[in-house]
């Protein structure tokens, strides 16, 4: 149920993001989802890719610092209020969210949100109990 996510350290400097993406392009890596956290000094690029271990190695060979972490993917209707419902489930169970990012699934008029709660296992349990559609890694990669 957990989705592997790559976090990449980026200096907040012109061209650094492009450099990372160039490495992925050369390696033929297709990005399923992406988000970036930025501060005035540095950024963290977060990626969902089909082959996280291989992609990590590829990036590390190009001098990037990469960590593999885990997130939860939840599928929902692409309509107002869907995300609020999901967050409501976590809220009720007192589960803190560190960050999230979402994207729209064009074909099916649905959206997917990637969640990173502080306690990931409790998060999955709560979401399942709350009736959310938690999807697997394979589902994401095949999008």
């Amino acid at each position, binding site marked *: 149920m957990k989705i592997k996510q790559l976090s990449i*350290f*980026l*200096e907040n400097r012109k061209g*650094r993001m492009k450099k990372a993406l160039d490495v992925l392009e050369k390696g033929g890596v297709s990005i399923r989802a992406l988000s970036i956290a930025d*501060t005035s*000094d*540095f950024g963290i690029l977060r990626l969902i890719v089909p082959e996280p271990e291989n992609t990590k190695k590829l990036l590390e060979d190009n*001098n990037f*610092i990469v960590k593999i972490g885990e997130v939860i993917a939840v599928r929902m209707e692409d309509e107002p209020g869907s995300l609020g419902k999901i967050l409501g489930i976590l809220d009720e169970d007192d589960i803190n969210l560190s960050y999230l990012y979402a994207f729209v699934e064009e074909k099916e008029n649905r959206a997917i949100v990637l969640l990173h709660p502080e306690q990931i296992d409790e998060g999955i349990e709560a979401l399942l109990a709350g009736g959310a559609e938690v999807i697997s890694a394979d589902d994401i990669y095949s999008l």
Partner: protein
Amino acid sequence: MIWNEEAECMQQDEREQLQLRRLQKVVKLAYENVPHYKNRLDKVGIHPEDIQSMKDLQKLPFTTKEDLREAYPFGMFAVPRRDIVEVHTSSGTTGKPVVSGYTKGDLDLWAEVMARGLTMFGADEDDIIQNTHGYGLFTGGFGVHYGAQNVGCTVIPISTGQTKRQIEIMEDFGSNVVIFTPSYGLYLAEVAVEEGLDTKSLNLKAIGFGAEMWTEEMRQEIQRRFHAPAYNIYGLTEIMGPGVALECPEQDGLHVMEDHFYPEIIDPETQENLPEGERGEMVLTTLTREGMPIIRFRTKDLTTLRRVECSCGRTLIKMDRITGRTDDMLKVRGVAVFPSQVEKALLKIDGIEPHYQIIVTRPQHLDQMEVKVEASPELFSDEVKELIGTKKKIENYIHNEIGLRVDVTLVEPKTLPRSEGKAVRVIDKRKFDDS
């Protein structure tokens, strides 16, 4: 006004005789009372009686900061400890500090040379002098204090900090001579403006500044902001403190108090003496100090000596203001910083690669120090708050080591220059050379 016309305007040949007599005496004093000097002179086979001309000084071995540090705390004293009435120390940021000991006579000497300087600045017994140099083990505060009292000024020993209070006192007490470091002076000026004080109304007569490197532009800026001439003070704890050389109204170099502190310029590489007018490392010998005579101290400060006729009437040799160092010491906001200290701090933190770069800038005339550190997988976290915590932690470690707040930036691995040969560890963007 000249404080001691006889000494300051003496004919050079006459002064040289005086210097030689004093040198012979001080070498004898050092040889007979300080084991360090006896060992060194015996090693090169020179006896105090061999000093027959000022040129013979060049035969004597140098004294380095390390020598003085090895003698910590009182090993360089040439008199019984009971005759030492005051001690000061260098900042000691790179290990044990250097202890400087003063007899009553030494304090009189200190008061004499600083009085000469303050008189050059135009200060006299009718003036009120606000001394923002720190009082304590640092020599800056007391040196100025003794000189000012010798002149007969009213001294406000306010020390550094409490900037708003400084402004208030300047205004209320009518201080008309102020002593500060250039960067603190510019900060004072800024605060004065914020507090709604018109610096013109202070009617300042003169400003004395030292303890850090500065540019002619910075002097102009200080003069413009305070509507008063600013004069340079040079000195170092090992030799005495402020008062080794001071600037006269011509504002073109500092007169070295050469009847008490004998200057030489050497090539720091070959250690050969350089002729007048050539830039090199300054070497100083105390000619009259009793408590702790220092022979041929390598200051690591780069400057030039010029024997020129000065419009002020003084015949004392002039040195240019310091524009560089032979080592990698930096002065940031008046504090001595060595890159090795930053390295030491970094090595205390797990997961840090010992690759770093120090960048010193001076935006708005205040020194800023940035340390770039390479991030590593151990340091990296997916959480922004943890990364910021890591950055703060590194900043605190460096602060503990050097006593200054710095700004740490995490950079990507392998982006900083590696120490192949001479790594570019320090980028000093402040410009001290006017050329």
